[in-house]
């Protein structure tokens, strides 16, 4: 059973400890009897199970012991190991989202040392390509995009810092408890780092209607979105269904939803969190003071001309804002409440008056004068310091936290009673409403940090299980719990509950390190099984067509990103540059509905970077990735769909991505090998990671009699073998 955090004296010595008096503040809380489904496995902490001993084999890896025992119980065989070529291709795609090179294959096949496979895994896990691959899985879960969505779909110029934070964290093997804590509450951490602030961008990644006519509703939508997503991503629970009413299938009363939301209510939704280092700030301050001094007189002259018109235009624009926003702008900056500060930040763009607008309003004579002054000012641009980096994220608003209300039917206009932050009843001590003690600090109310600490307790029933299950799903194609974000009563039961609990225990006792867990899973014989061992298939397929018992490896299909990145890699075009603002391809730069066009990245060498670095527009998605089930980024996506359609085939056949790769690869092959047979051989090695059979060799050579080499490349890029892993 879960126990509340012990007095965290060591950690909190600098903070004042505040106990939130909760008591029964809610008329809506029902008399507390045991909730329904109180015994559901996922509400109780995983026990560390004994490693079982299979009767007919003695596997080295604990994972295999758990799997084999189950297979024996249902009288199913396991499959023979895959070939080394297949294994290397599988693992390289799995960990990097890219194919192995022919040299890497040759080395592995030739390596007779007993730890050859382990060396491969260590090499793959140490590469920065790992973070780019697994970062994408995480971005699916957190609904990442680079724009706001809705009508204007404005760019979020700093969203990429969160994307890079994820990649960096994974590559550094940051412990998952820290990764989670930073995303929920990085701003509340003592000695917070820039990365910890950037991480809180997690909460704001959903779509946002910036010009909503109802800004209070807009704020609630964002709060709901972050509550729902935290529930799905970290708890693996569909808590969102309890927003409008008690959950129909799970023992989550509606109060649970708003108690969870109350952890987030005090937060201001910021897009201007300074993430510069103190040295950079000092440097910037100095440079800026110099610049201000240099330009003082010219700026004062400009102001004298502009100010009257600026005031008039500003007033006119302000009139178009809703009354509460008008009042916020009229309140002197230092007197604004937290809500007003946010409202001003969110509407600033709409009342901003540009120099061009002012120029238009000026009398002819003064216009020339202003232009001249502006040119003078411009001549100092070289001395102007570049703006300091900012990020999206949360900080708690100053002052007492806003109240959280239970909202009937989830509607803003129907508040039914105040609630205090609290954990889900089924996960609380004694499965009853328990007051939560929260330590506030100078950094904020401490609510989100308290939530993060609760989530990352070693014996939390869900956090570790949910995460190891996500790792398993991405390695094996299907989770031990197939409903990866639904561990509730209504979700699917785990196929191997003891294995799940063992993995969760290993994860926590190993310091929440992901790379160690990847390695454990990939070292298992279960992972190394063949996809199609005919003998095993004959016996097992009819009994277990879905491979629930893991008698073979599942056949995995490459995602759109892996396909595109592979095409770039094999054709020698891949630009390996990491990080930075998203790359806007010309194909996704145009207008889309009410959104303005976005400037395509001017440097064309950027177009061939990995797909995770492409600018993700909500209203105009990359057609290539879209046809391969790119999730729509508006809701958390726990598992990608895998569709097969004719339009998808047309895309891979005819898209520029394929044809340019085919042409470039053909050139490369012609440079590397002089004869047709050698070129064919090399094409199979580069694209499919193996030698062609003699039938294939003959067929390809025959094909090349009336087709160019680039067509052979295009054909192989379209084969099932290219997009499905053995």
């Amino acid at each position, binding site marked *: 059973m879960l126990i509340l955090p012990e007095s965290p004296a060591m950690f909190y010595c600098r903070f004042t400890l505040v106990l939130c008096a909760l008591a029964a503040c809610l008329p809506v809380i029902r008399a507390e009897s045991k909730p329904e489904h109180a015994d559901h496995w996922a509400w109780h902490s995983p026990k560390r199970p004994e490693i079982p001993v299979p009767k007919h084999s003695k596997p080295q890896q604990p994972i295999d012991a758990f799997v084999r025992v189950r297979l024996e119980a249902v009288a199913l065989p396991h499959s023979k190991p895959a070939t080394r070529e297949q294994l290397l291709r599988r693992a390289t795609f799995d960990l990097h989202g890219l194919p192995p090179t022919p040299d890497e294959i040759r080395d592995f096949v030739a390596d007779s040392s007993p730890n050859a496979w382990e060396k491969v895994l260590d090499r793959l896990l140490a590469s920065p390509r790992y973070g780019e691959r697994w970062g994408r899985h995480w971005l699916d879960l957190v609904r990442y995009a680079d724009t706001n*969505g*809705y*009508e204007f*779909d404005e760019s979020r110029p700093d969203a990429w810092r969160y994307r890079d934070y994820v990649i960096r964290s994974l590559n550094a093997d940051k412990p998952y408890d820290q990764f989670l804590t930073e995303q929920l509450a990085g701003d509340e951490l003592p000695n917070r780092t820039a990365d910890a602030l950037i991480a809180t961008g997690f909460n704001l990644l959903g*779509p946002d*209607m910036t*010009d909503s*006519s109802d800004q209070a509703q807009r704020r609630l939508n964002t709060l709901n979105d972050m509550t729902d997503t935290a529930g*799905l991503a970290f708890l693996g*629970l*569909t808590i*969102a*269904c309890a927003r409008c009413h008690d959950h129909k299938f*799970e023992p989550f009363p509606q109060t649970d939803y708003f108690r969870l939301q109350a952890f987030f209510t005090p937060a201001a939704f910021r897009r201007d969190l300074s993430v510069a280092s103190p040295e950079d700030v000092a440097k910037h301050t100095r440079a800026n003071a110099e610049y201000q001094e240099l330009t003082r007189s010219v700026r004062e002259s400009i102001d004298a001309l502009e100010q009257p018109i600026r005031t008039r235009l500003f007033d006119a624009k302000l009139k178009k804002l809703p009354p509460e926003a008008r009042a916020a702008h009229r309140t002197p900056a230092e007197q604004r409440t937290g809500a007003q500060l946010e409202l001003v930040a969110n509407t600033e763009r709409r009342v901003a008056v540009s120099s061009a607008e002012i120029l238009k309003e000026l009398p002819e004579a003064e216009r020339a004068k202003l232009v001249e002054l502006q040119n003078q000012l411009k001549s100092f641009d070289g001395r102007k310091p570049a703006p300091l980096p900012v990020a999206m994220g949360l900080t708690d608003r100053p002052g007492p936290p806003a109240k959280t209300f239970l909202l009937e039917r989830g509607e803003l206009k129907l508040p039914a009673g105040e609630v205090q932050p609290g954990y889900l009843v089924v996960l609380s001590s004694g499965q009853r409403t328990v007051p939560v003690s929260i330590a506030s600090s100078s950094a904020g109310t401490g609510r989100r940090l308290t939530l993060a600490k609760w989530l990352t307790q070693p014996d939390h029933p869900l956090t570790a299980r949910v995460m190891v299950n996500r790792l398993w799903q991405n390695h094996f194609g299907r989770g031990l719990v*197939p409903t990866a974000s639904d561990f509730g009563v209504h979700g699917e039961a785990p196929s191997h509950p003891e294995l799940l609990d063992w993995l969760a225990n290993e994860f926590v006792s190993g310091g929440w390190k992901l790379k160690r867990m990847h390695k454990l899973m990939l070292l298992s014989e279960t992972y190394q099984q063949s996809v*199609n061992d*005919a003998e095993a298939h004959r016996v097992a397929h009819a009994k277990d067509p879905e491979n629930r018992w893991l008698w073979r490896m599942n*056949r995995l299909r490459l995602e759109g990103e892996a396909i595109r990145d592979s095409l770039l890699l094999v054709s020698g075009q891949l630009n390996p540059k990491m990080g930075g603002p998203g790359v806007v391809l010309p194909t996704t730069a145009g*207008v*889309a*509905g*009410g*959104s303005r066009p976005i400037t395509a990245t001017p440097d064309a060498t950027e177009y061939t970077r990995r797909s995770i670095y492409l600018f993700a527009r*909500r*209203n*105009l998605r990359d*057609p290539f990735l879209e*046809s391969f*089930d790119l999730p*729509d*980024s508006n*809701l*958390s996506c726990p598992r990608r*769909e895998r*569709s*097969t*359609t*004719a*339009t998808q*085939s*047309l*895309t891979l*056949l*005819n*898209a520029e991505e394929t*044809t340019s790769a085919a042409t470039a690869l053909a050139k490369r092959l012609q440079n590397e090998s002089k004869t047709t047979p050698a070129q064919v051989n090399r094409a199979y090695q580069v694209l499919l990671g193996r030698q062609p059979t003699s*039938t294939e060799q003959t*067929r*390809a050579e025959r*094909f090349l009699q009336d*087709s160019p080499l680039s*067509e052979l490349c*295009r*054909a192989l890029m*379209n*084969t*099932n*073998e290219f*997009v*499905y892993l053995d």
Partner: protein
Amino acid sequence: MIRSQLFEHTPAPRSRRDFLAKAGFGFGSLALTALLAEDSAGADADPLAPKSPPRDASAKQVIFLFMSGGPSHMDTFDPKPDLTRLHGEKLPASFGPVTTRRGVDKNRLLASKRTFRKHGQSGIEVADWFPHLAKCVDELCILRGCYGDSVTHPESVYLMNTGSILMGRPSLGSWVTYGLGTENRNMPAFVVLPDPGGWPKGGSPAWGNGFLPSTFQGTLVRGGKSPITHLDSPKGISTAQQRRTLDFIAESNREHLASRGADSELEARIAAYELAFRMQSHAPEVVDISQETKETRTLYGLDRKDTAEFGTRCLLARRMIERGVRFVQLYSGDTNGWDAHSDLEANHGKLCQQSDQPIAALLTDLKRRGLLDSTLVIWGGEFGRTPMTEGTSGRDHNPHGFCMWMAGGGVKGGQVVGSTDAIGLRAETDKAHVHDIHATILDLLGFHHKRLTFRHNGRNERLTDNGGEVISAVTG
């Protein structure tokens, strides 16, 4: 995948043999035998196979004519003599407070400048902007009591298309193709024909698949030789070369499959390449209107500058319906479209001029070809407009009351269902929320809207969320 979703009351796809026969598969008995051997898994791998709805229904296909930007109901299909009488006065206090996008609640009322006349046997009044459509009025069921939830474009566009003001949910067309599959695998199942001037506000999520598999998302189709993105063979590749390359792919794939035993996903992907090739040759034919008779071309207004563009898209819609496309959505109006905040007369006048004749032609043409009974045609925008004026000559957004119409597909024509209040501000009798309209559309197609569900993040999601009542009067 699909099979694991709760899909209540919808029978499994018709047999795979039936589907293959219909689709005219030509890739040999080897694959066919393999497919038949794994019928259930095969159904899983082909979510677009045609399916029967749980209930027999006359409507089998849908054309949604979306008037992007929000057309005024008071100036089109909802005459308001009292508004004319009260022209120039302030909104009477008895109407209470009202929310609009641009805060026009205190503005004066603006009479329609249009003349309404009774038409057809039903005697329904239609504005004089629609001389052609007026002749079809006995086919129309006009819903005058519609209302929605938001005063903004994108939220309302999403609501009308996906049942939610929040972005990212599956669109109506996606739900319908999820429920019914499609009869023509040589074309996308759900086709979107946007205005060449621009997309509706809110962009592609309006025809997105949301959490449904991407198989069900709307595909943009345009006229001309290259109607679908990536349809054309790459530059410099002849049809013969494309066929050779495809043959090479197919041969490699068959060998790959043979060495791996039956696998419905691999088989489905082999089939998808054959479909892709046929789509390459077939789709340009679908959008090639050169074979249409002069009479038909004139009917749709292709010979006139102002009607030619929208007329062409209406004609394309008919050609696609004829060839079994399940859901066609046409947008009238560019990104601003019918959004007449000022000079409504000029704005609506032009758009009516562009669309009246083509829409009437579409109804007429569908009818004479015997397709109207099985094709549900829907007309409407994301909301209506205010009876209060904006500036001197425009109207603001009005989600509180507006009109739409339906025709064909089992709809009882020549009737008006519901009404707005005396001045057209709010829906008043037989009110129809957007969820009700969606419930009715699904009902006309043979589905109970509460039972067409897809399990996502622990919830059986549906188009109508937690609401929706079928408007029974629509079927008479």
